Structure formats: structure tokens, C-alpha cells
């Protein structure tokens, strides 16, 4: 919602573009068969299109709106998402616009009880978290998508039906001029939390809804405070409640506050109540200058997911597959990881570089990640909005203790950075034996600075990467397949990379296109690498293309 007198998209800092449905010559061939259709050009749909384009696969995005999503919504983008944006060729504008941060502070009744630092060091290329409004996220992804000859976007075009046909689906679309159908080999449903495609397929999200309701309001003001996440427990302005404050670019500040049980959502959403709520928070944090209201909304904390992210030729990606509580800031970050996961897998299968069985690993990996988010986010949600007397009592006890006992303050740590480990998933080999350190199989590959000052990840090729320390193994693996499929990085056995990998001269790490480790060996052989690469590409037997 925006203040009275403002247009629906009249922002203090962002100009919403207006896109029309395909016109003129662009209408020729609307009904032509496509390899991949994507329902929804939100951030996840656009990321999926870019991930497919990276594999040389063309797609068409269909979205019923004429512009980007309204309001800033998801604002915290984590380190791993920046790696994904980098691989999609879109990270540069994000780096220029966003505000990187590492720190959070929690306060109880006005007194600081916790300051936490997320993992960061000189050996990290990206900060653990960046704040940026969702409009910018979508605008930057759109710029990258619009620049790709492999991506077509149809705005003001609504997906109204999906029907199974031989080796694909028939998609029905209604735009501003007509209704038409076209066929596609695959459909990615990136059509958001309310996912009409999900309903068309007769599928339902399952899980829990939490009690807590939060107002999110964005205000513009000159406020002198670094980009640090602030959580206020039981503050003067909201006795018994919780408030979150985040800095965003363009002098925009995100204020989240919890509604009391007796406050109705309708009442809380009224502009005068929002203004009073925000004014109370600003008073508590000592802001005395002027401020302008930009946008506000209400959300609840849910942990809902589909049992299976695949239904025949349809894959559910992003919010259409799962709704996660906001406190973990995983909504969009998780969606990006889905998009990149299905993007490379579908791309590799379509290019004949992987067997179709690879697609079966999408649900266990990404649904597993969602369930992990649920477990963590549910912890956060219970701390932020205790659902019952017992949770409330223990939360209050922890906060009260934290005033003079730092250990209790740690219970208020939101633990927002925990990339999921794809261990035990098909295609990820059991972790190599004998390692005493280094990231295990299934984990995201870590970063380090090499001796020449460059980043380890800068040497990665577009497909799989083998990190190895033995010239003979490197040479042998190079003979297996093209460098485009599998790049071999020969690294110094005593160097920084070997150190963080816990590697010796005979060790090797096989890293997938999404930077997750497919396998690692303390003592690797050509046969080991061959087998693991085969299983990580869906169990196909040969590599010559």
C-alpha cells in the first residue's frame, strides 16, 4: 500500500517501467512450440530464464503484470545468491547499488543484548548479506534477460491453463489482444506464492501457518546508522512485541513490527495507524528528523511446501513451491537457488550432456533445503513471536538473562546464513574419507584468495570444475571431456586452496555448475573422477559428445 493520494506505483525513489503485451511483428509465432516456457517473470522466473540461457537454452517468460512487483518486499540477498547472480552475468549492478553488511544487533527494552557477526573475511569475495529493494533486483535481472537473445518476455499475458500433451504441455495464455495456446517441452511454474499453475495441477502446499503478523513499512529519511540489522525486543513503542530495522539504498529504511493479537490486520493497515506505528519506532531509535512514508504491507509467517516440486513436465520453482517465514530471509534467496538448480540441470539434459535422471534430483535437493529453512526459520519465528505460554516464558527468560549474560543473547541470533548441504542426494557421492578439514561433499565450495591475488572461483569454468593438485591427474581428467563440461584447475599442493580444502598432492574436489561439491577424495584416481562425474550428470555412461 502507498500513502493516500499516491498512485499504486508512485514511489519516492523508483520509476516503474510499463511493459505491454507483444505487439506487431512480435505476435508472429506466439503459438509456436517452445523448449521451455516459464510462467511468471518475478525474480525467480527471470533468474531461471538466465540460468537456462547460460546453458544455451532458449525460453519464454509469460507474466500477467505490466511491470515489476510492487513494493520492496524481499530486501536481504545473501552471499551465495551473489555467486548465482555472478554466474548469470547480472551481479555488477547489484554490487553497485546494494549495501553489504555483516553485523546484527539485538536490543531488549532498549539495552543491547547481542551483537553478532556473520562469517566474513579477507578470503571472501562477497559480503555475507546485501540489502537491496526487490524492485532493483527485478530491474537488474530484467536488464540481463532483455539483453539475452535466448530470452523472450511476454508481459500482460496470463497463463490460464496447462494441459499435458505428448512430451510436453500445452499452455493457454490470454493477453490484452487475444487468447491463444502454445506447446512447450517443459514448463517452469515461477508464478509465486498463490501459483495459479499449482492450482491448475490440483496441487496444494502443506505445512503450518504461524500466529505472528508483521507490518513491513518502508520510510525515506536521513538517518545516521550503519547497515546493521537491528532487532528490538519488547521496546517502549511496542511493549511485548518485536521490531526489526534494516537500511536499504536510497535512504530507505525498512521497519518491521509485530502486531498484537488484539490488533486487527485491517486496522493496522490504515495509513494513520501505520504512521503512528512507524513514529513510535523512530522515537525509540532516536530519529527526530523528518521522514516520508513509501510503502507498507502485512505478512504472516508460514512454513508451506509442495511434497514434490515436479509434476510431469512441470517444475515448481520459487514461492510457487514453498513459502518460508520472513525472519530467515530465505524467501527469495531460496528461490534463486531453486532457479539455478533446475536451470543447469534442465540445460544439461536438453543439451544431451546429462541423463534425464538428473532432473529427479531437483526435488530432494531443493525441497530438502526448504525443510532445513523451515527448521531454522521456525526457531527464529518462535523467538520473534512466541506461539504459546511456554515459548513466551523461555524467550523472556533468555532476553532477561541476556542483559548480563552474553550466552543467553545468542539465543536471539537469527542464524540467517547456512547454505544447505546436498548430502545423501542422488548424484552427490558419499564424502571422501580421511579429510580432517575442508567443505564436505554436498556443501557449497568455499572461497579463498590464491597466491596471485585472484579468487579461487575466478578460475571456474561454466560447467563442472575439478580442483586438483597433481599434474598427472589433471592431464588425465582433461582427456575425459571438453573443458566446457569439466574445467580442471591445477592448484599448488601447498597453497591457500589446498589449505582450505584440507588437501594433499593427491586430493581432488569435483564441483558442480551450481558450486556444490559433487565428490571429494583425499587420494583421487581418474576412475574416481570419472565415476563421480557420471553419477553427478544423472548416471550417463559416456562423456564424448
Amino acid at each position: 500500500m502507498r500513502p493516500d493520494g499516491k498512485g499504486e506505483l508512485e514511489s519516492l525513489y523508483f520509476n516503474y517501467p510499463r511493459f505491454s503485451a507483444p505487439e506487431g511483428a512480435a505476435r508472429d509465432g506466439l503459438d509456436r512450440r517452445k523448449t521451455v516456457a516459464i510462467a511468471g517473470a518475478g525474480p525467480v522466473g527471470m533468474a531461471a530464464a538466465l540460468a537456462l540461457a547460460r546453458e544455451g537454452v532458449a525460453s519464454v517468460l509469460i507474466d500477467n503484470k505490466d511491470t515489476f512487483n510492487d513494493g520492496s518486499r524481499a530486501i536481504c540477498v545473501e552471499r551465495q545468491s551473489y555467486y548465482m547472480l555472478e554466474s548469470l552475468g547480472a551481479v555488477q549492478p547489484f554490487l553497485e547499488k546494494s549495501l553489504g553488511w555483516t553485523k546484527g544487533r539485538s536490543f531488549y527494552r532498549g539495552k543491547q543484548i547481542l551483537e553478532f557477526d556473520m562469517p566474513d573475511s579477507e578470503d571472501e569475495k562477497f559480503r555475507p548479506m546485501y540489502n537491496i529493494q526487490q524492485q532493483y533486483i527485478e530491474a537488474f535481472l530484467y536488464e540481463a534477460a532483455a539483453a539475452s537473445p535466448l530470452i523472450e518476455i511476454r508481459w500482460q499475458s496470463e497463463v490460464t491453463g496447462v494441459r499435458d500433451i505428448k512430451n510436453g504441455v500445452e499452455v493457454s495464455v490470454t493477453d490484452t489482444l487475444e487468447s491463444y495456446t502454445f506447446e512447450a517441452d517443459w514448463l517452469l511454474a515461477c508464478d509465486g506464492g498463490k501459483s495459479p499453475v499449482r492450482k491448475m495441477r490440483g496441487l496444494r502446499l502443506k505445512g503450518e501457518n504461524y500466529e505472528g503478523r508483521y507490518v513491513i513499512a518502508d520510510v525515506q529519511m536521513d538517518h545516521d546508522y550503519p547497515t546493521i540489522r537491528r532487532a528490538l525486543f519488547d521496546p517502549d513503542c511496542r511493549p511485548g512485541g518485536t521490531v526489526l530495522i534494516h537500511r536499504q539504498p536510497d535512504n530507505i529504511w525498512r521497519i518491521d513490527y509485530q502486531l498484537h493479537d488484539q490488533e486487527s490486520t485491517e486496522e493496522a493497515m490504515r495509513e494513520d495507524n501505520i504512521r503512528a506505528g512507524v513514529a513510535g519506532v523512530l522515537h525509540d531509535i532516536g530519529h527526530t528528523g523528518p521522514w516520508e512514508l513509501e510503502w507498507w504491507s502485512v505478512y504472516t509467517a508460514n512454513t508451506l511446501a509442495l511434497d514434490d516440486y515436479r509434476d510431469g513436465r512441470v517444475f515448481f520453482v520459487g514461492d510457487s513451491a514453498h513459502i518460508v517465514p520472513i525472519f530467515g530471509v530465505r524467501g527469495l534467496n531460496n528461490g534463486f537457488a531453486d532457479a539455478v538448480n533446475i536451470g543447469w540441470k534442465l540445460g544439461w539434459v536438453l543439451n544431451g550432456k546429462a541423463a534425464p535422471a538428473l532432473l529427479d534430483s531437483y526435488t530432494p535437493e531443493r525441497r530438502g533445503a526448504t525443510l532445513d529453512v523451515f527448521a531454522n526459520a521456525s526457531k527464529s519465528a518462535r523467538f520473534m513471536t512466541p506461539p504459546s505460554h511456554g515459548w513466551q516464558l523461555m524467550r523472556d527468560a533468555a532476553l532477561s538473562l541476556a542483559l548480563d549474560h552474553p550466552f543467553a543473547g545468542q539465543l536471539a541470533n537469527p542464524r540467517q546464513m547456512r547454505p544447505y548441504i546436498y548430502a545423501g542426494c542422488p548424484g552427490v557421492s558419499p564424502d571422501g574419507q580421511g579429510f580432517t578439514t575442508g567443505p564436505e561433499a554436498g556443501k557449497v565450495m568455499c572461497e579463498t584468495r590464491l597466491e596471485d591475488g585472484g579468487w579461487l572461483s575466478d578460475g571456474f569454468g561454466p560447467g563442472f570444475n575439478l580442483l586438483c593438485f597433481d599434474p598427472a591427474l589433471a592431464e588425465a581428467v582433461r582427456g575425459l571431456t571438453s573443458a566446457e563440461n569439466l574445467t580442471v584447475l591445477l592448484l599448488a599442493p601447498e597453497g591457500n586452496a589446498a589449505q582450505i580444502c584440507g588437501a594433499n598432492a593427491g586430493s581432488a574436489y569435483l564441483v558442480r555448475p551450481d558450486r556444490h561439491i559433487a565428490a571429494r577424495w583425499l587420494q583421487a584416481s581418474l576412475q574416481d573422477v570419472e565415476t563421480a562425474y557420471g553419477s553427478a550428470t544423472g548416471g550417463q555412461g559416456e562423456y564424448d559428445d
Partner: protein
Amino acid sequence: MTDDATNTEAVYEAMAQAIDAAGPERTELLLAKFALLLSEETRDTGKVLALLSQAAATLSPGRL
């Protein structure tokens, strides 16, 4: 070394006094904080959880 029984008795008496001082409204909070502090001091999660179960097991009416 202190005698165990005497030790427990001292805690027993101090808790009775602290609970009275806190008043019924804040007794729960006091006990919850106290439990968290003891748990942090003990540094043995398994033992603390077992003790919690023991305490909870005999709360039902008719048993003591």
C-alpha cells in the same frame, strides 16, 4: 568438601526465599532464568535434558 545434603538444603532455602521475593507473577520467569543459568554452567546438555524429564515425569496429580 561440602556435604551434599547440606548443599541441597541451602539451595532449597534460597529458592524458597527468592520465589517469595519474586512474587507469583514472576516466579516462572525466575525459575526459567535459573534453569538456563544452571544449564549453561553444567555444559552437559544430555544430563540437563534428562533432569528436566525427571522433573516433568512426576508432576501429574496423585503422584509426588
